[in-house]
């Protein structure tokens, strides 16, 4: 059983469209991390959000941490084929990470 629920499980969009991935939990975390994992590779950290209500922007990616520190979202603006990959959220508590099952994003050229 995954502590964190991610939705949707799969997402296929056209280049230039926007997308949002959600990560929800009933647990409170000290921080929440988003990773992207490409085929044949390990997860690579994109961002860590720590404060409830925090919003972080990295170029075309916007990350939001819920006020209660239980949920988060990742929004990609004007998606590009290079954004294709498995997006994983992970909640941190006592220096341990609990991962969601991931959202597989495919951006078609």
């Amino acid at each position: 059983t995954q502590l964190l629920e991610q939705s949707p499980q799969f997402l296929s969009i056209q280049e230039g469209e926007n997308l949002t991935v959600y990560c929800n939990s009933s647990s409170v975390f000290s921080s929440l991390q988003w990773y992207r994992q490409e085929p044949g590779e390990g997860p690579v950290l994109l961002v860590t959000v720590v404060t409830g209500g925090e919003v972080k922007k990295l170029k075309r990616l916007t990350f939001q941490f819920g006020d209660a520190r239980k949920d988060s979202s990742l929004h990609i603006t004007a998606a590009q084929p290079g954004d294709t990959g498995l997006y994983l959220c992970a909640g941190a508590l006592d220096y341990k990470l609990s991962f969601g099952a991931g959202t597989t994003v495919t951006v078609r050229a």
Partner: protein
Amino acid sequence: EAGVAQSPRYKIIEKRQSVAFWCNPISGHATLYWYQQILGQGPKLLIQFQNNGVVDDSQLPKDRFSAERLKGVDSTLKIQPAKLEDSAVYLCASSFPSGSETQYFGPGTRLLVL
């Protein structure tokens, strides 16, 4: 700075055989983690080391899995005997300073048990 190294990258074995995976963390990283990632799922923590001591192995199937981190640097994860359901990607990660919540992952070892 070199990343987390893992070997082998791929391994195919038959059930009931044994297999070992090796991990070399980022230099100076005190904490080392082994995760199991089954297809369609997120990584699941198997064991966490702080230097050469075990911090958490509550989700390690100890009847068949074992891990060690001699001298607090490299680590090996062993499965003996392997079962079909052990087919997965085994990821190693490290973090620094001790207690940091930022983990750096290696490329993983893809295991197929036939």
